[in-house]
């Protein structure tokens, strides 16, 4: 085990009966880095996180967190990680302060540092003056920040966040990620799952999960550069018709709606005239066709389509 890695997952697999929720997933998270686990609902992100936190036992494979084997040294792992679940697991009938106090006591925060630590967390979460408010009365964004404060009450060097921004407004989401950045700056390693592609841009490393498997693993820029082919943005009238017209062209690998325009994946930029011609022939006016840099969403869609094509081919054979 390398000292620099906060998390090492090796061939991590989890079955639920016949269903494979996580299929031989391997990755490493270097200390102090933010690792983003991306993918649609049901891809296996939450199951992966739950195995790393020791909530679920892996069916096979192994994982080490902060140098400790998750299966054999669960107690050592627990003291060193913070975990924030999708549900913001807080007690609604307890006040803001009581929730923090509860977790601080469970984690055995020392008496000398207890009061200053709780004050510090309340300041960080921007909950000053709301200490005596019942958690049930807090807005989504405040609950989220309180949940984060509870998860890091014992200053864990490793933080697991399972869809930490679900159901929170865009501004609060951005503020939340700034808090995560601050923590990473202090040396905390972070693993966060999300299905917001824009959030993935905040991460140092991204793992893309689809159908229980890790289909890509790299930093955001490398993922974009590694995308095969050229991405053209097509702005036209009748984008609906245009999509089916372009899909039929042999030069086109993929077409996906992107706002009001279309993102068309082609093998080379030389395909542009063919696209323009096909659209005009079908009575569609191509207002603008230009090469664009792929977003993480484009990368993900292209990877998923490639995955599905491979699978289909395998099934046919």
């Amino acid at each position, binding site marked *: 085990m390398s000292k620099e890695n906060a998390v090492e997952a090796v061939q991590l697999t989890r079955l639920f009966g016949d269903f494979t929720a996580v299929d031989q997933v391997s990755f490493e998270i270097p200390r102090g880095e933010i690792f983003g686990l991306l993918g649609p609902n049901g891809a296996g992100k939450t199951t992966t996180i739950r195995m790393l936190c020791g909530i679920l036992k892996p069916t096979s494979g192994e994982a080490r967190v902060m140098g400790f084997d998750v299966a054999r040294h669960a*107690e050592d792992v627990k003291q060193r990680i913070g975990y924030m679940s999708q*549900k913001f*697991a807080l007690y609604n009938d307890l006040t803001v302060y009581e929730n923090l106090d*509860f977790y601080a006591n469970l984690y055995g925060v020392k008496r000398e540092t207890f009061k200053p630590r709780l004050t510090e967390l309340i300041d960080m979460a921007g909950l000053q003056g709301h200490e005596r408010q019942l958690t049930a009365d807090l807005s989504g964004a405040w609950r989220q920040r309180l949940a984060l404060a509870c998860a890091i009450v014992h200053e864990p060097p490793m933080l697991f966040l399972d869809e930490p921004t679900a159901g929170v407004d865009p501004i609060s989401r951005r503020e939340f990620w700034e808090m995560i950045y601050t923590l990473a700056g202090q040396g905390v390693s972070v693993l966060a799952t999300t299905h917001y592609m824009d959030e993935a841009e905040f991460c140092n490393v991204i793992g893309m999960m689809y159908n229980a498997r890790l289909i890509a693993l790299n930093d955001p820029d490398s993922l974009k550069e590694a995308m095969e082919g050229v991405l053209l943005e097509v702005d036209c009238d009748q984008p609906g018709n245009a999509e089916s017209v372009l899909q039929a062209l042999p030069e086109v690998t993929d077409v996906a709606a992107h706002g009001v325009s279309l993102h068309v994946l082609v093998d080379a930029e030389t395909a542009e005239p063919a696209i323009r011609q096909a659209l005009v022939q079908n009575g569609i006016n191509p207002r603008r066709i230009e090469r664009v840099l792929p977003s993480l969403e484009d990368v993900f869609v292209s990877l998923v389509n490639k995955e599905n094509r491979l699978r289909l081919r395998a099934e046919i054979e």
Partner: protein
Amino acid sequence: MGQGFRRMATIVHKEWLHIIRDPRTLALVIVMPVMMLMLLGYAVANDVEDLPLAVADLSRTDASRTLLEKFSASGFYLVTHVAQNEDEILQLLDAGIVKAGIYIPEDFGRNISTGGVGTVQFYIDGSNPTVAQTAQLAAETVSQATSQQILIQRLERSGAGLTISLPIDTHILYLYNPDMRRMNFIIPGLVAVILQVQTLLLTAFAIVREREQGTFEQLIVTPLRSWELILGKILPFVLVALLNVAMTVGAGALLFGVKVAGSIALLAGLSLVFLLSSLGLGVLISTISRTQMQAIYMASFIMLPSFLLAGFLIPRDNMPLLAYYAGYLLPVTYFLEIVRGIILKGAGLITLWPWIWPMVFFSVVVFILSVLLFRKQIG
């Protein structure tokens, strides 16, 4: 150990906050025992006394008047209506105004004084079998006693100054519950019921609620160990349960005059042991339920048969054999005998031993198995 104790105490403190802040739990804790006591005390267990009785005495003789006086004096009946004929009695019974009626025909007095048989027609409203049975028994007893008295008078009159007494004189003396009052049977039983129902439900809810709101998973990632969690969860309910036993026993003594004849310390101690089984079943239910709704279904599935089989309302002696022996598998069966023994008979440890050891055994087994299953599930 120091940290372990701190974590357990943290759970206890939090659980306590839940109890005092949740109006539903508070209601379950305070209202339920009082409500059950009142319901069973005033509504269900009404002893048969002063049943409204309609009387039609067409005979109007000394003999008929004596008979009616005996009915009034028995305490079971209260003459509320005087009717003129049989039809009127039937109308009163139909309307539910009286529960029983007695019709003494015109020839009753004459037949008795001439040494014949005086026939009396007695009507009972049989819609409530328990009441009807007692009413019938009382009517038979009263008329037999009156018959004997008349018979003796006749014999004394015919035989030359002989004093006659009946050859067999059976004295019946009820021990422990001299007035045969149903509350004496019900209140000790209520202690068992409250300990079982309330503790079981509260424990099950306390754990299932954490599952529902997702905090259970959060607890698993903390260094909290399963025994710390279980102890922390159940200790507040032990306190609540003991408080309730005290409340029930106290209210039973104050409102219904059912005093504890035996040792209160013994009662408290054995209640604690019995609690283990309820707490265990609560933990068991929480282990197999995902939602509070499921927990309620599971709880009623366990509780209903246990009340029927344990002999809370229906004495076990009258049950079919299968049901009778099934009762021996339930800790509450033994506990019912123990509570009744202590409260009514003032029985001590040695007398109750045949009931105590199986209760201790079953309670400890249920508790340990449930906790092991719970630990296996979260481990």
